[in-house]
């Protein structure tokens, strides 16, 4: 790892009455060139608010969270012990402490889950559509009622800051069920002129970056369209799915409509290769996605794949620069950068590059990395030791390739998996860190001179999930967003999600869409 830069703050940290003598550096950042002196306030007291980089701990209370020591498999509406699987510990990546044990499904367990889903499917599909919808509305409400508890568990098991789990993940989860609930009895209006039917039983495999949100994205449309599901959460983040199973029980959703089984790659493979499924819906890496497509080749079983990305995030010189800087921050440091649509390749027009980079670095210095359950934490824990290793390897590669690294000076917690927010400047299209998905809080910055160059660089990738563009000029927005080969394009914003807005990739970022009327198509058979 390269040495970290010194902290920089905008102005001199000197006595309150004195005039600072700033040095304006070439990139426009004023530095005090000095130490963290205490600011004396009248009366001689040292003001803790002024002088501390961080704020006093503001831990989220966890005393109302109920977690079992052990979670079996959720099959046919019952908690069932694994027959040929076992139990695995699931940890808190912020502390490496075990939170609970969760059953892993063997081949036979997968078989049982698919059987339960198959048994339930006919009845579920034949329910009056409004009634099917009402179950989903009920689930949405129960999620809202328990959203703080779920947010805390999401944060504990996955490492994401409680602020994000609480303010982003959980609202979207509830909204997803609420939105799709309403579709259940309106499918005939969704595809006029076409006759639709449920696909049947769908196997769903989701990643660890948004465990509950991905479960909602998968389950809600599938159920609304009359399918039943077998969901496999990611190996490292099973717990909120277990709570979701409780909610399906509480909501009285018929047994077998939703089955949730945990496990790693072998459980996933057992699902993918099972001929009893009508479809596989997968969110995860491009590599695994390709494997699934190959495994399903020629079987006639359907698949939708939501895979990796390396989104370009273009900042034109006429952009609202402060908001653009915030867009970069939200684009790459949201959820520790564990986001398939993260804005990991920032492209800045040369005329404003120094200004933007300087402001970005200053903003980085105010990001708080630490305990995910502290309400002030901006960047939480990396999801797993394995992922931390992957990020570290790629960042080292960036340094070796000659890119210029910047990390704020804030120290990281000694226990748990953490990685400092990282900016690479002086990067080139040929660098590994520019080409490969890092899936961590690491952003590369390149410059460009003309709109054509920006678009060319943006599209020069195997991926095509998302992209961003910042400019104050309307015509330029439409020209650029049209030219970007990506499934979601954020103009003057980034990382926005909504159940009514279709999401999914071009090129190697996936096949199919989730959300909106377009997303329903993936869960219906057209006759």
């Amino acid at each position: 790892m390269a040495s970290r830069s010194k902290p920089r703050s905008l102005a001199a940290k000197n006595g309150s009455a004195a005039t600072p003598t700033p040095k304006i550096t070439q990139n426009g950042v004023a530095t005090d060139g000095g130490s963290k002196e205490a600011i004396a306030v009248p009366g001689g007291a040292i003001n803790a608010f002024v002088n501390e980089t961080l704020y006093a701990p503001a831990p989220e209370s966890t005393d109302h969270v109920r977690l079992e020591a052990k979670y079996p498999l959720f099959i046919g509406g019952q908690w069932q012990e694994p027959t040929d699987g076992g139990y695995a510990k699931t940890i808190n990546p912020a502390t490496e402490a075990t939170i609970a044990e969760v059953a892993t499904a063997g081949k036979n367990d997968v078989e049982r889950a698919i059987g339960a889903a198959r048994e339930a499917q006919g009845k579920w599909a034949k329910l009056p559509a409004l009634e099917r919808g009402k179950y989903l509305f009920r689930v949405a409400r129960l999620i809202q009622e328990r959203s703080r508890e779920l947010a805390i568990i999401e944060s504990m098991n996955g490492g994401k800051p409680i602020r994000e789990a609480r303010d982003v993940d959980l609202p979207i989860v509830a909204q997803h069920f609420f939105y799709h609930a309403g579709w259940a009895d309106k499918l005939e209006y969704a595809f006029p002129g076409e006759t639709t039917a449920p696909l049947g039983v769908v196997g769903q495999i989701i990643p660890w970056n948004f465990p509950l949100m991905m479960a909602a994205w998968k389950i809600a449309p599938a159920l609304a369209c009359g399918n039943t599901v077998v969901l496999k959460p990611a190996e490292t983040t099973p717990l909120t799915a277990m709570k979701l199973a409780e909610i399906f029980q509480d909501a009285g959703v018929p047994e077998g409509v939703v089955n949730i089984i945990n496990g790693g790659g072998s459980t996933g493979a057992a699902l993918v290769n099972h001929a009893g499924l009508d479809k596989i819906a997968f969110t995860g890496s491009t590599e695994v996605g390709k494997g699934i497509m190959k495994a399903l080749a020629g079987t006639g079983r359907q698949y939708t794949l939501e895979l990796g990305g390396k989104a370009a995030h273009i900042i034109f010189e006429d952009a609202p620069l402060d908001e653009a800087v915030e867009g970069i921050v939200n684009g790459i440091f949201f959820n520790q950068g564990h986001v398939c649509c993260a804005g990991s390749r920032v492209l800045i027009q040369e005329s404003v590059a120094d200004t933007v980079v300087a402001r970005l670095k200053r903003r980085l210095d105010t990001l708080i990395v630490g305990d995910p359950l502290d309400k002030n934490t901006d960047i939480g824990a990396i999801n797993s030791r394995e992922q931390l290793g992957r990020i570290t390897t790629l960042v080292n590669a960036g340094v070796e390739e000659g890119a210029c690294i910047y990390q704020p000076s804030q120290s990281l917690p000694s226990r748990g998996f953490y990685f400092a927010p990282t900016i690479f400047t002086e990067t080139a299209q040929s660098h590994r860190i520019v080409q490969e998905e890092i899936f961590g809080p690491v952003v590369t910055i390149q410059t460009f001179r003309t709109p054509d160059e920006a678009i060319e660089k943006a599209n020069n990738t195997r991926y095509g999930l998302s992209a961003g563009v910042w400019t104050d000029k309307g015509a330029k927005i439409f020209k650029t967003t049209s030219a970007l080969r990506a499934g979601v394009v954020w103009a003057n914003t980034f990382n926005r999600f909504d159940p009514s807005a279709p999401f999914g990739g071009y090129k190697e970022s996936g096949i199919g869409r989730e959300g909106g009327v377009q997303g329903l198509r993936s869960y219906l058979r057209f006759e």
Partner: protein
Amino acid sequence: MRQPVWKTYKLYIGGKFPRTESGRYEAVRDADGALVANMSRASRKDFRNAVVAARSALTGWSGGTAYLRGQILYRAAEMLEGRAAQFVDELQRLGLSRAEAQSDVERAGDLLVNYAGWTDKFQALFGSVNPVGGPHFCFSSPEPTGVVAVLTPRRIGLAPFIEAIAPVIAGGNTCVAIVPIEASVAPISFAEALHTSDLPAGVVNVLSGHRSELLPHAASHMDVNALAVWEADGDERRLAEQLGAENLKRCFFFTPAAQDEVTGNPALLMRFQETKTTWHPVGT
């Protein structure tokens, strides 16, 4: 007695009519064994060249107005109508009855007219303004997937060929059509009609060839975005998806409609579209 002037059938790549680089040909004969034409047997290199042509035509074709695409497809129908007698004659020599040939050519023209009309309408039907829960304007619209390799139906006729390629190009994609040699005479002739329809070079490329030879190359080509295989058997499906997975190629398998049911289908057109969702804040 005056001898008729025979036509030489070649490939159609990038707006030109080259012979196959491989120098290979296959004779297509009528029921009496008389030579109809020596058709080129396209090679993987011909396919590669066609993909290059299709890729370079994509920006212009997809970036132009839908109205223009509609007019060009309609122009192709006009050209087809003008040469109807020629196509009917060709199809008869390949064994179709006069009535069958006539019906096929009429249907082919009607399909072109139908898709000419779709070019500027499907976006409104399949796009959406998304009522997102925040201060943003959000809309989703279809955009062409890109370069599409189309393995057209085996049935002799013009309509099955048009049925396979019209929904692809109407939506702004460019295509490389691989036509079974025995069915390729009319499609290669039709390329001449396309050529005089203001269709930009490279938007449609037509190769007569062997599916078994060309499918693996079409499926594995990293610069082909989608693959449509008509009348695919199980092995072809498996091969297409297994090789296509390397670049997440969209793979579709279609069965042609019965001759008298062939009609334009926007759902078919939509298979070759990606949905792009665009967000922008709403503020002053």
